[in-house]
């Protein structure tokens, strides 16, 4: 019931023309190279025209978030014929990558319709039943895990004293029940190969991590500003993966969380759809 009300309101918002800079198209320039585009400083980014994306408070699904921390993103897009990438920049006074009970991580997400039809767009708010979206979410905490290793309790609490863990005295199979979400391979918990989660959704609360994880990304926080690149293949035959091609069109939307302001889940800033055009 909550979800269906949300979809109705979201669908109404999606139809508002130009409500959130939707008239400004994002042009994905053609870059050289073949593989994932992970460079934050490639000179070719200078050719890509930055678009300022106005970020809106998430006021549809509860819990709502009337005053999000991040008001705008600056976004560039590029592709190399095989991979698509976005360079996303925003102001954030604090770098948040430590995750404990009252601390949250910085995050940013890019969203596409899985199948783009100009006359039947999914809700920009995580899609709707039947209108599936692909969401690529970069997390500062995941990047920290990759760079410095997954935090152990002593990393989070340097003075922690622990006698013994089950995995130190039991066989792996017997110790598994004591590993909680890790033991059931929760994608939030499991060891990371990428700082980006490749996901699909059909409305609020339906976010699902795809079995097929190819997207990647990298971020850098410097002087009160995040610069994050998120990259994904143009065309993959996998459930929940969009099909892009040079010269083609689609739409794209963004969401951003400031962990330092306890933003997480639906407590976020989001954008409406922007046209996305691929150079040949």
């Amino acid at each position, binding site marked *: *019931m909550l979800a269906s009300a949300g979809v109705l309101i979201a669908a109404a918002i999606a139809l508002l023309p130009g409500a959130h800079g939707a008239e400004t198209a994002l042009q994905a320039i053609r870059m050289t190279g073949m593989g994932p585009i992970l460079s934050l400083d490639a000179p070719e980014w200078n050719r890509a025209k930055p678009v300022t994306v106005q970020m809106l408070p998430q006021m549809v699904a509860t*819990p709502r978030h009337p005053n999000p921390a991040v008001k705008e993103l600056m976004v560039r897009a590029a592709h190399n014929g095989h991979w698509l990438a976005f360079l996303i920049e925003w102001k954030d006074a604090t770098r948040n990558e430590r995750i404990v009970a009252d601390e949250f991580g910085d995050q940013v997400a890019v969203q596409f319709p899985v199948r783009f039809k100009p006359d039947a767009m999914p809700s920009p708010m995580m899609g709707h039943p039947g209108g599936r979206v692909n969401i690529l979410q970069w997390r500062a905490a995941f990047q920290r895990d990759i760079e410095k290793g997954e935090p152990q309790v002593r990393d989070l609490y340097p003075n922690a004293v622990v006698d013994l863990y089950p995995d130190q005295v039991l066989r792996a199979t017997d110790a598994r029940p004591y590993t909680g*979400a890790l*033991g059931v391979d929760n994608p939030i918990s499991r060891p990371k190969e990428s700082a980006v989660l490749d996901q699909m959704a059909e409305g609020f609360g339906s976010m699902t991590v795809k079995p097929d994880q190819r997207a990647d990304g990298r971020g850098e926080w410097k002087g009160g500003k995040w610069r994050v690149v998120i990259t994904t293949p143009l065309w993959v035959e996998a459930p929940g993966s969009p099909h892009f091609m040079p010269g083609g069109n689609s739409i794209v939307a963004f969401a951003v969380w400031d962990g330092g302001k306890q933003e997480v889940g639906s407590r976020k800033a989001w954008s409406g759809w922007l046209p996305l055009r691929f150079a040949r």
Partner: protein
Amino acid sequence: MPKVYNWQIGREMEYPYEGVRPQKQFAMIMDTNKCIACQTCTIACKTTWTPGRGQEAMFWNNVETKPYGFYPMGWDVKILEKLGVQEVGDKVYKGKTLFEAAPEGERVLGYLPDDLDYAHPNIGEDDCTGLMTQGAFLQMPHMQWMYYLPRICNHCTYAACLGACPRQSIYKRPEDGIVLLDQQRCRGYRECVRGCPYKKVYFNPITRVSEKCIGCYPAVENNRQTQCTTTCIGKIRLNGFITTPDKAREDNPMDYLIHIAKIAKPLYPQFGLEPNVYYIPPIQVPPAYLIQMFGWGTEQAIKTYRQASEDKRLLGALLLFGATPDIIHHFKVEGRYTIGYDEAGAELVRVPLREPIHIRVVYDDKHQTYRSNMT
């Protein structure tokens, strides 16, 4: 928000989901008068369920000293303060529940504890309300007091953790009403940690998702009472199934103690969650504090409890605490015994209402020795 009926506050109230009661409802009664805060329950739970990485400061079961003990720090006074002064103590609650007091855009009135609030699980242990002055002597209720409050997840009928989760990662099992958090589905938003007023959902910083008491469901599925119940050396707990007051069965010890004798009371019923752990209030504590904590009927509950020795049926129900590891579905008092039965009616346990008294002579002729009268 849909309207649901909460019998503990005697009225309908708002809840994010339609009210569907489970076929059976897991419940527990704890006799605060018998608890000595030995923490055997805490350690039994800890070694059974939470010895893993990221669970170092996580106690699904804890025992705190009231009024100055809290785990996490200040959990109840903080949410009481947020809710504001409400009129409690009537059968029909006139104040606002946490769902009704939710700020605009939120599902429930709550707060996220600080990480360090979990750092002192035994803070305030044995702290009394104050010192006794020279020459003072204790009266009932005591002028200076404390008592022990053992706590687990309340497996609420209208769980705030469940209502607060935007992903429906928390569910209430239809077969026994145990509230579980899906370890595969949770994404660690901590809306449940924020929403649960009892602060019985915990965040695991290693797995980065939340975890909570599972009501020892593997035991309950096999008709066994929970670890915290069966290991309790003071026999303060009884774990079973409760029905709603209109369907109360007199031969179900849980129904009998909660609905008929009315000596066991829910924890902060004014929050509106219809919690399913019930407490026999401590008899020495001033009523004003107890009414705030356990709601209407607390004074009568204490009065009835203090006369339990004169009421064979009530005594019979109370003597089933800690008498068997199995879940007692039916009981009856027959002659000198109280007898507990399983769901099918097979006898589980037989407890004498009065232990036989053996008087030993001071001088033992056989061994030619004096005996002191110690047991």
